[in-house]
């Protein structure tokens, strides 16, 4: 069997560049991060007033601060790594920095398109679009889409899916 041709970059977008997601997703995730780490810092900080525990508490506070800063930066990078592209017959979604992923879902295989948004996402104006096929392993989730873009995408996907739907 002859070798199939190779492409230069396994995660290159097809044609035009990847459609990015909204930077507000990064804001939303950072907000969630703060909601978790600030109480932790407060608790640790208050225990620092106890003399015996001070060195341990201060060490833990330092660790938490470093972790928070690192996650802050990481969130930005991860949000920038999300991308999607609509082709004639299928939809591509890519994500990840360390563990890069690309999934291609043919329109005819789509069974469900979900749009969800938690309270923080809603307040910042981003939603998550998730495509379902008959396969549980299809991981086509695009977070951070503004509601207008998300519902436009969903309508297009639903129409195309309807047109091309194949049996199981």
């Amino acid at each position, binding site marked *: *069997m*002859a*070798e*199939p*041709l*190779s*492409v*230069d*970059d*396994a*995660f*290159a977008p097809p044609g035009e560049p990847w459609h990015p997601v909204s930077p507000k997703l990064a804001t939303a995730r950072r907000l969630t991060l703060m909601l978790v780490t600030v109480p932790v810092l407060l608790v640790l900080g208050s225990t620092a007033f106890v003399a015996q525990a001070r060195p341990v508490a201060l060490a833990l506070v330092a660790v938490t601060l470093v972790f928070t800063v690192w996650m802050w930066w990481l969130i930005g990078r991860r949000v920038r790594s999300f991308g999607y592209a609509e082709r004639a*017959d*299928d939809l591509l979604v890519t994500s990840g920095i*360390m*563990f*890069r*992923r*690309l*999934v*291609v*879902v*043919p329109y*005819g*295989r789509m069974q469900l398109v979900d749009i969800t948004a938690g309270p923080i996402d809603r307040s910042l104006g981003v939603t998550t679009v998730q495509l379902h*096929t*008959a*396969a*549980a*392993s*299809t*991981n*086509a989730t695009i977070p951070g889409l503004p509601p207008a873009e998300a519902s436009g995408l969903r309508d297009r996907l639903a129409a195309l899916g309807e047109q091309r739907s*194949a*049996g*199981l």
Partner: protein
Amino acid sequence: MTEPQPIPGVGLSEPERRRHTHPLTPVVNSIRSVGILIGAVIVFGLGGIREAALAGGLAGVLAALSGVIVILGLTLGLSYLSWTRTEYFFDSSGDFRLDSGILQRSERRVTLSRLQSVDVVRPLLGRIVGLAQVRIEVAGGGDSRVVLSYLSEKDAQELRAEIIARAAGVGPGAGEAPEVVLATVPTGDLIVSLLLRSETFLLLAVSVLIVASIVLTEGAGGLFVLFLTGGLPLLGVFSQFMRYFGFTVAESPDGLRLRHGLASVQSQTVPPGRVQAIEISEPLLWRRRGWVRVSLTVAGLQSGQEEGQMGQVLLPVAPRDVAWRIINRVLPGVDPSAFQFEPAPPRARKRAWLQWGNLGVAHDDRVFVASRGFLTRYVAVIPHARTQSVGVTQGPWERALGLASVRVDTTPGPVSVVGLYRDAGQARAIAEAQLLRAASARASGPADRWMVPRVPPAAPPGAGAASPPVAPVEPIAPTPPAPDPEPPGAQPPVAP
């Protein structure tokens, strides 16, 4: 569908005549519910019962057990009530209806035009008293399964025949579809194969290590641990033996019928149109004997049901040629011995030195194949038309080596089709090529209709062990990827 005509050989019941399940049903159901309770009482309460007997005689024992008796009575009463309210019948449009429920009435209707399979299942408790269940599967997946418990064996078979007859409509092929046995698994082979499986060996090895270390450090007390840890792998072997005893594969017009089980006899119909992917596994210790196991992912069948992983093993163990023949029935035109694998690039050895020899992908005009595995070699086969989506993944180690893995997604089940650690650029090319093949297969493939009255297969399948696999597939030049798609009509003809 108008008034059903009488079909010779199958008495159709009058429309809308409501029937009850067997009167012993509440008893069997109660035993199933409180059996654990009774067992616990016997195991833990024997001492207390003895004391009560010594103190107050029979009255004392009854008093001690009063709680259990009350619970038993309540369960029996509720089961009986539920039984009186459970009815099944064929409604005016010919569909099967099952009404049940005491407080909350549930009406389940099976649209016979979407019928996928009907099976008679004999769970252990029912078998003891000669009862069986009728299990009806409908196309659509999820919870579209209706189980009718319990009927007498004769009633169950008759009901099954009637449902099939009605689903097939008026005409030929009604009644119990004739069966041609294709393969059976001899008991001796089953036992040996289960003992030789890699999991069994590894568990035993681990047990021996644990026991040896305990005995060396603490002395004879470690022997007790032997019973615990040595028992586990043997328990696994035993339970698999009970499940797959007497495994028989038969062909009938409505698909492949699998029958197996020692205590509870399970029977399962696999309509070919529903098979999503198959997996051939070859444990290391089976290779000398040429044995393989074949598993299936079938759409719409649930795993982890009360019968365990029903319908997901096509053959627990079989010689290769038998397995290839059976696979041909499920995926016509596919010959696993003709797969020409393209191995992973040499630098993938650094990523997976143990698996490297088993890594490869292959494809022909019908299926895509991916192999992997270290001690056990797994070959996953998916027909192009069953491709759901494709994916490419790459972890940091793979990126450093310029590798990526290709995954072809399929419905939930034991089979996963992953081409591990290919060259990164090639992985993307393979994914795109597979999408094209999938699209053209869907466009040109047959419609998914089953349970349509079918002519039995022309060539008698029971023509002995010498019959060659149907339509050996010739090695075919691969479809070139995106820029130059090969038109679907230009595929080479397959040998008859």
